């Protein structure tokens, strides 16, 4: 089968995407497929039309590749592709959209407020900051709405730190959200098809936050998979994750990140195209479920070609 691997692009997670893409290409080759690697750029559509791949493996992260843009094009061109469809990607990529949907489905997500730059520049939203800080408490988390790998995520320990955290987060996106900080265990539930894979826990070095470096530096963070959870915890976590996956309309695969606090799971976000690098969580979870990386890739392709079989 001729498989186009879409990777790179110009999102901030280009580097991560190139690593994901390389791993996927390798697995596809070993599986005996014809691989067409594409570093996504201006000639994407032209190349897809000329090369006519049977299926596209989307190994892109961040804006452009994970937000539905590329998926939309693939849908128009009638090329089956891996991972969620354009609409689900758009919902997952935008944390504000995702949180609206999660809340509507009555799933637990930390209290939050969202602002775009215009609100501050033109509508004097700064005057509302005090009130929302009261609601959320400190420390609070400031996140760009569309972003991945924890890029631009800032913690503010006091009101005086909020403006600077906002300026930083706004460097990554036009819209940011302020969120209550929930203390607990960092968990990720990957879903393949409609099946949850074993829960992965990121166990950080003391004093570390689960930031970009902690995610991708080998040996920096210890990952436990499956995470040590009681049966009850595991059920609560898995249910919350599956609920999120369905609510956002994901198909193929996705990874749901959440915090397990003393009072139960709190959903943070859904990743429509989770990382597939050496330190990424989806491959680890698959492995714990007995799937080698090649088997994982093959399964993802199957789901793209025969969605009904999921």
């Amino acid at each position, binding site marked *: 089968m001729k498989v186009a691997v879409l990777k790179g692009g110009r999102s901030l997670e280009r*580097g991560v995407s190139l690593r994901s893409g390389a791993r996927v290409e390798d697995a596809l080759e070993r599986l005996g497929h014809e691989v067409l690697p594409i570093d996504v750029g201006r000639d994407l559509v032209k190349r897809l039309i000329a090369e006519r791949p049977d299926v596209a493996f989307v190994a892109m992260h961040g804006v452009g590749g994970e937000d539905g843009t590329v998926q939309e094009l693939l849908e128009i061109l009638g090329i089956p592709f891996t991972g969620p469809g354009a609409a689900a990607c758009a919902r997952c990529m935008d944390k504000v959209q995702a949180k609206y949907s999660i809340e509507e489905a009555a799933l637990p997500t930390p209290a939050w407020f969202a602002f775009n730059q215009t609100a501050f520049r033109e509508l004097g939203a700064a005057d509302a900051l005090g009130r929302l800080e009261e609601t959320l408490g400190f420390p609070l988390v400031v996140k760009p709405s569309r972003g991945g790998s924890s890029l*631009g995520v800032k913690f503010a320990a006091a009101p005086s730190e909020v403006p600077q955290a906002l300026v930083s987060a706004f460097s990554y996106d036009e819209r940011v959200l302020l969120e209550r900080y929930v203390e607990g265990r960092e968990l990720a539930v990957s879903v393949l098809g409609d099946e949850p894979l074993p829960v992965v826990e990121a166990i950080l070095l003391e004093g570390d936050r689960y930031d970009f470096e902690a995610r991708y530096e080998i*040996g920096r963070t210890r990952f436990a998979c499956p995470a040590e959870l009681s049966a009850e915890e595991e059920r609560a976590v898995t249910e919350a994750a599956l609920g999120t996956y369905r609510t956002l309309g994901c198909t193929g695969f996705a990874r749901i990140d959440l915090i397990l606090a003393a009072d139960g799971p709190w959903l943070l976000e859904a990743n429509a195209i989770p990382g597939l690098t050496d330190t990424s969580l989806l491959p680890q979870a698959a*492995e714990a479920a007995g799937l080698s990386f090649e088997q994982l890739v093959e399964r993802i392709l199957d789901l793209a070609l025969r969605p009904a079989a999921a």
Partner: protein
Amino acid sequence: MSEVPEPTHRRRAHTSTRDLERYAGLFAERTGVMRSSAMRDLMAITARPEVISLAGGLPDTSTFPPQSFAAQMTRIAQESAAEALQYGPTEGFEETKDCILEVMGAEGMLPDPDDIIVTTGGQQAIDLICKAVIDPGDVIVCEAPTYPGALSVFSSYQADVVQVECDEDGMRVEALEALLADLRSEGRRLKFIYSVPSFQNPAGVTMSLQRRHQLVELARAEELLVVEDSPYGLLRYGGEPMPPLYQLDGGDFVVYVGTFSKILSPGIRLGWMVAPPPIMEKVVLGKQAADLCTSTLTQYFVREYFAERRWQRYIDDLVEIYRGRRDTMLEALRTHFPAEATWTEPEGGLFIWATLPDYIDTSDLLAKALRADVAFVPGQAAYLDGRGGQSMRLNFSGVGDEEIREGVRRIGKVIAEQVELYGALTGEQRAPEPAAEPEPNVLPFRKAEEA
């Protein structure tokens, strides 16, 4: 003849979680301080053609005449193929040292050739001196900010790096004195002071003559080693030449690191170190262990190149080009950067160091700048202690005038947006407009045209 099947290209199999754990268990303790960073990953985007990168530290090798390159390589092939393809002495060829003596002579230094070792770039010289003298926990003092590439070397030897504040006259030697007293009272062992005294990377500042004397006197009085890294000494665009620390000291306590990277080519990977014999002895042993010898082929290339007697003229050409680009960048900064920003006005070298209001984090700003297709090095890379978040290093040697102007304009625009946003967030009115008149940014530098 039996047919050997051509091996097909294969990437390595995916590393499983178990492999990762196994490797992580193998890692030496020193790798724990070798940090990768989000910033380095973001730099993946700068490789895209639409991005104007002011982030690199690249000399403009397109200025080197290809005919000259071809002629030299042909001569080597015809006259010395066997030797040029052979191993060479660990210390380097005498003929390479003669070229080094010419370069150092141009800055008034006259070292004993036996004190010279030819290295694989100046970077290896930094590595070798650390290898010779640094035990884990030993203190290295350097400038704040300092060359990011040196910090990675220091970290890999698990040195305890202490950075001394710089101003427009370079490292503040009186602050260094106070620090030395503190270290002494804490019983900590200072192994050497690392300095880039001329047109420093990244700050672009040059240590004043008075400070140079102070530093050398301090080193001699306290019997401290100073490692003087001088990649850009001959790339001066204005002001009076300054004597290298090595010259002032005479080579007793100053170890000198030089390179052909910025005056000829970084691709040939040729640098050198000058050190007193006892240190040199250990450095040679270290070099032997590291790579036996520096590339003989490129040493032959340098020999041929110097034989043409045009090397100084080539530097003159570079100086002309880079001076123009520096002026273009300074002009663009005055036009496009906001009033709150300050920057250095280097008399030479490759870099300008700009500092923004303290509420702007340049590592985050880089994300925004990359979306506007422009890149710089966030200041944090030049510190090990998390400082530098408000500064950025801008390179003016690697790209042409038009790109410099456009690149600085784009950065200025994203800064202005952040300045305005912060104003809106805090209720402080901040002018997003660039300053009509440039701030007098503590500039002791004479403008190029006055030089």
